[in-house]
């Protein structure tokens, strides 16, 4: 286990380094941020001053090494637009995104897995078929369209829930969180539902497939023959087996939720980091883009690691140390 962890961490550092070069060079070649940031009637002297102050007059490699040196000390540079450390700006937005992503994930798990179970067991009657129809809708409807529909129905027509923004937050462990008060929660419901829809469908399909596959297996027949109750067979034995692919996929999907909640955040004016990075790309705020992508990569590496470890706990046959 320890050897595995060490190897994985070394690999991760290399991945991060390569990523940083790719991202830095890529962002550099998109365009010069100063052309967007500066007032168009600024004089050439003012232009030159701003270029120099932001360090854009240096050659690419020098900019990269300044960045790398800072990054090793945990400093990703100051945002061009906000003039505050890029990392701080992103971390300020992180709780909002995490809250949204985790709520969506919890919804997907607590709705998707039970529905998937039902669909798997009752696959040949109307309940099962309707669940599957729902999951096809969840897969195929575009997120932005569903988001707008949710707003039109629940905010504009029924006036039950707010149309966007984050509402009231409560401070908890130094983070501002919404879900601790009803008022805050009411702002969270629509975007989280919007974000959860696709993942719920995914969980339904994975669970259903797993259930159907496992119900055919010998161990189920054996357990039945031994006289175990159906609840116990499905609740304990089958569940344990189908959870492996579900955890792997949902684990990866959690990363996606956090990193790419962009569409939902934009539609619901949710102040998370997805929206931040879209705004930053719009004005080529390089430090934010680079820091964000590196944070995302780190997060994926970390989630992968956790998924692998959980995998080995659920299925003792998987030995981490032997993976090459």
């Amino acid at each position, binding site marked *: 286990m320890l050897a595995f962890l060490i190897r994985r961490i070394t690999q991760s550092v290399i991945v991060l380094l390569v990523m940083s070069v790719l991202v830095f060079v890529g962002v550099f070649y*998109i*365009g*010069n*941020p*100063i*052309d*967007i*940031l*500066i*007032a*168009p*009637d*600024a*004089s*050439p*002297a*003012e*232009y030159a*001053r*701003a270029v120099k*102050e*932001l360090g854009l007059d240096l050659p690419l490699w020098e900019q990269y090494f300044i960045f790398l040196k800072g990054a090793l000390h945990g400093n990703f540079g*100051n945002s*061009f*637009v*906000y*003039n*505050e450390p890029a990392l701080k*700006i992103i971390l*300020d*937005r992180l709780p*909002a995104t995490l809250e949204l992503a985790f709520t969506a994930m919890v919804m997907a798990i607590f709705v998707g897995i039970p529905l998937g179970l039902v669909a798997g067991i009752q696959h040949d009657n109307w309940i099962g078929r309707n669940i599957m129809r729902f999951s096809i809708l969840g897969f195929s409807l575009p997120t932005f369209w569903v988001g*707008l529909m949710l*707003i*039109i129905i629940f*905010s*504009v027509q029924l*006036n039950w829930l*707010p*149309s*966007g*923004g*984050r509402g009231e*937050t409560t401070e908890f462990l130094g983070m*501002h969180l919404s879900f601790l008060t009803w008022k805050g929660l009411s702002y969270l419901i629509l975007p989280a539902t919007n974000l959860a829809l696709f993942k719920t469908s995914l969980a339904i399909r994975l669970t259903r497939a797993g259930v159907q596959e496992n119900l055919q297996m010998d161990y189920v027949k054996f357990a039945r023959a031994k006289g175990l109750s159906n609840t116990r067979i499905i609740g304990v034995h089958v569940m344990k087996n189908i959870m492996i692919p579900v955890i792997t996929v949902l684990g990866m999907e959690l990363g996606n939720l956090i990193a790419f909640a962009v569409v939902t955040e*934009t*539609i*619901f*004016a949710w*102040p*998370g980091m997805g*929206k*931040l990075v879209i*705004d930053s*790309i*719009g*004005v*080529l705020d390089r430090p934010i883009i680079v820091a964000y992508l590196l944070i995302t990569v780190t997060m994926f590496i970390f989630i992968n690691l956790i998924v692998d470890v959980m995998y080995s706990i659920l299925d003792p046959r998987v030995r981490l140390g032997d993976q090459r």
Partner: protein
Amino acid sequence: MKKKLLISFVVMASLMLGASFAMARDLTLGLKGEPTSLDPHFHNVTSNNENSLFIFDRLVNQDYRQKLEPGLAESWTPVNDTTWEFKLRKGVTFHDGSPFTAEDVKFTIERIPNVPNSPSSFTFAVSAITEVEIIDPHTIRVHSEKPSPLMPRNFAAFNIVSKKAAEGMTTEDFNSGKAAIGTGPYKLVEWARGDKIVYERNENYWGKKLPWEKIIVRPISNDGTRVAALKSGDVDLINFVPPADMKHLEKAEGVTLSKSSSTRLIYLHLDSDRDDTPMVTDNDGNKIKNPMKDVRVRKAISKAINREAIASRIMDGLAIPAAQMLPDGYEGTSPNLKPEKYDPAGAKALLAEAGYPDGFRITIHGPNDRYVNDGDIAQAIAQMLTKVGIKTEVNTMPKAVYFGKASALEFSLMLVGWATDTGEHSNCIGSLLHTYDKEKGYGASNRGRYSNPVVDQKMEEALVTVDMEKHNKLLIEAVEIGMGDVGIVPIHYQVNVWGTKKGLSYHGRTDGYTLPYEIQGE
């Protein structure tokens, strides 16, 4: 039955009471842009300037048509050609209770060029100043090397900060609220980045007292979401109502729309300087000498564009065909210039006369995420040009990529927008028509590199002519020559639309700002 009626009556009454109380106290604005900072001198960009006017004041204000009116300065007069005297308002206090004096003005002027890492500063407004002389706590004299007729205009561009609160403070201190102490109508309570800015009424404001105790500004960049927020009643006012939503909002109950023309000009820059322009070939794809050096070709392009059709069909009526760089009636605009008439036959004749009877090939470039319907406008123009024989391809791209390339002169024909902060014509002429001149700082956005020494000379003379009548006359002459030469091809001015809940009204502003003291409540 009676009981039921009574209950419903009580419920209704309390709801209405609650609603009217909420109206009286809070105002929630859903605005498209979010400020990047609350330091009023850090970044010269619309949403920053707009929000800074909640907290701070300027010496000179611009009304909703950008005419100058007294702000923290009650009056301003030229003492001689190179000196302006400003009489400051007495009895004004900052949010922390300290009095506003000439020291604060001097401090502000000195601070502006020294804001570190500013991506776009306000230095332009104070660079002419050689000395700020304090005559008494409420009188200052501003000296410059050359005559500066635009000094009061420049003083309408930046906010006055408190010396006591802002000395030694950084942009970060403004963002946190520590240094964001002004004399403005509202005090900053909280800025939750990306989510909302909360302001509270300044009870000691020198100007008109406003009905709202609290104003919440929510940045909602997505057009659909902003409209939904208004319709669902989450916000009381939104700006930049998208043209596509106009029709159904006009019919929606409880929503009022208000339109205001803006100073945002959409225009074409044409490469009129180089012999070899990158995006032009003859009909067979061979390089040819730049046809747009010939004024007849530029005129033909202008005549080929049907501005009325663009305004009515692509802009849904939210555009006014343009003849110059600022709408009629602004300082320095010519009353003689009229939008070029759509005249495809005339355009063809001009092209033939210039030696291009069969036209040529060109690519029009434009952004697709910067101006209202920018990509569609470029498409429409391409079709119109193709119709008169100039076979035009379209290439649009995100603004992040576009502006860098445009400034590097990689294009031949490009769609751009211009909005002046100063509300007068010299700013437009100096940036768009004046010969590109790094030393003097003119022609910064002259991406077509149009150049005419007479225009240059008249504009430069205007800038040192303090007699405003003469000053404006020189500008009018300059713009008439420049537009006669088709230095740029003006297309239209955008019209901005605000949506408000019933009971509120906003007349809009030509600079597009949404300012609290101009929102009318009942």
